């Protein structure tokens, strides 16, 4: 089992390296540069800037330097915010995004999984249709509309009521400022989790061993919780990997709409400003997060399905 896990870690590292490499060369080889926007700059200044950021070194040298610095935890200087190192920016933004993403994920699981089970166990009844259709709404309505509508409702219309919530800003993570963004971030996952759990639960309840468990005279609720839930959770857990990628994308929207200083917004601004190092740093972090989450998923599998412990040696 541990060798299996170790092997998965060993696959993660080259993956990360591949992401870094592709990202690096993609940035350096594209037309246009970070200083284009700062229109008519004298050639001399430009040369100075290029020298300062080592952009005049040979490409392979830049690449090796970048990797070496990365190993030391240094993402290099920002091309845009000249006085900040990327590492500082990330150190500020990452915790914010992680907290929000984590809360959203937990919220989504707590709401989505039970709803999915409820729908599955009432398959093709009114309850099922209501839950499934609502879930579909969550998938179909884009995050950025939902965000803006929520702002309109809670930030503007309910301004003078007790339901008023700040329309944006972070306010050092005050609870009221977190509610709407986290909710908005969680909504699509609630929807996905409902769908996934519903499908897998329907499948799980159909298994032969569920019939065995019912033939033992166990109450249906117990049969579901004890015998069906674990296998129904496997697809849910599998979704956690992609969900991380998804939350990262979602945080771009949510952090932009709600003006939250997280890495999602940094990425968007960095991309629009062609701030190479910032964009790269966020991409690399994103990949690292997804890889870490996939490892966590592997660990959970081992708990959910004992066969993995033996099969995958």
């Amino acid at each position, binding site marked *: 089992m541990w060798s299996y896990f170790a092997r998965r870690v060993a696959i993660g590292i080259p993956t990360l390296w591949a992401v870094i490499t592709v990202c690096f060369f993609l940035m350096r080889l594209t037309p*246009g540069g970070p200083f284009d926007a700062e229109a008519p700059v004298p050639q001399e200044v430009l040369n100075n800037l290029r020298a300062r950021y080592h952009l005049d070194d040979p490409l392979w040298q830049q690449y090796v330097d970048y990797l070496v610095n990365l190993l030391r935890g240094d993402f290099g200087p920002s091309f845009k915010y000249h006085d900040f190192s990327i590492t500082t920016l990330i150190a500020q933004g990452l915790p914010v995004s992680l907290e929000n993403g984590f809360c959203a994920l937990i919220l989504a699981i707590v709401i989505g999984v039970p709803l999915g089970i409820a729908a599955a166990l009432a398959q093709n009844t009114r309850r099922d249709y209501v839950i499934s259709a609502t879930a579909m709404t969550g998938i179909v309505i884009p995050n950025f509309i939902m965000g803006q509508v929520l702002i*309109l409702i809670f930030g503007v219309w309910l301004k003078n009521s007790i339901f008023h919530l700040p329309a944006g800003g972070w306010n050092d993570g005050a609870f009221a400022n977190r509610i709407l963004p986290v909710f908005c971030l969680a909504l699509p996952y609630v929807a996905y989790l409902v769908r996934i759990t519903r499908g897998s639960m329907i499948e799980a309840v159909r298994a032969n061993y569920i019939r065995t468990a019912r033939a033992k005279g166990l109450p249906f609720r117990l049969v579901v919780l004890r015998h069906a839930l674990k296998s129904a959770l496997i697809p849910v857990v599998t979704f956690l990997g992609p969900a991380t990628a998804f939350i990262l994308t979602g945080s771009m929207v949510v952090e932009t709409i709600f003006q939250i200083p997280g890495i999602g917004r940094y990425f*968007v601004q960095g991309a629009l400003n062609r701030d190479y190092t910032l964009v790269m740093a966020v991409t690399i972090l994103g990949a690292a997060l997804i890889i870490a989450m996939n490892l966590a998923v592997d660990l959970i599998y081992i708990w959910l399905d004992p066969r993995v412990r033996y099969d995958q040696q």
Partner: protein
Amino acid sequence: MTSSSLTSPQDAPAVQGRSLWQDAWRRLLANRAALVSLIVLTLIAIAAVFGPLFLPWSYDQIDWDHVEAMPPDFASGHYFGTDSLGRDLLARTLFGGRISLMVGILATFVALTIGVTVGTVAGYVGGKTDQFLMRFVDLMYSVPLTFFVIILMVFFGRNFILMFLAIGAVEWLTMARIVRGQTLTLRSKEFIEAARASGGSTPAIILRHIVPNVLGVVMVYVTLTIPNVILLESFLSFLGLGVQEPMTSWGMLINDGAAELEINPRTLIIPAAFMTATLFCFNFLGDGLRDALDPKDR
């Protein structure tokens, strides 16, 4: 086992092929949600493709008499009113739908081509090839691909072709996995073995025997991918990376409308209604197709 004498011989799948599709079609039409979705989708598609030809205003034409957002007005031919620049909202919504649907379909086609190729080859050839291809797919799954789409759109400009190529390149992974799984189960079937025994070449067998038989799952997945792509396009529009003005798409219209949500909710609601209706229908249709093709879900 002594029981074998009592079980009836199974018909070969090739013989059943025809009626299998007919059955699925019948079951699909029996599913009310899927049937309604199919009709609505067809109507929206027809409206998006041909509608603009019959409207008095074109999508980029400014009505100088109404340069401010105007509520629906039949006299001037603005059936859904105009946007804040005095352009006809219905014309824009239909035209935007054309673009969104086109991006959705083209990108899905790219995903389909790559996914089916990789999936069938990996599943059918097996061995090292399979391992290599699936490792690659695994690896790609750990990459934040939307990031790369954004990077590409920023650095190479907002290029229409690049957009659906990039999106397609993101969406093929799941397709490849699903198709491979199907191919694996097909590979051991008798009619494939018969084809192999009678000397069919690998590409020929894949094209003639594997691909037609994975078509069912692929169709389900296609109907579920198109709405994903449309959503992704709207997300890019939100970031200002969608199609370029004066061209427009549902995503852009929604994003423009959202900016005026408070004063002019109509400019958000109309394109949003079209888009969500479309996405709903694709999803219901996909679910319906899946049930129709997989009758164990009685």
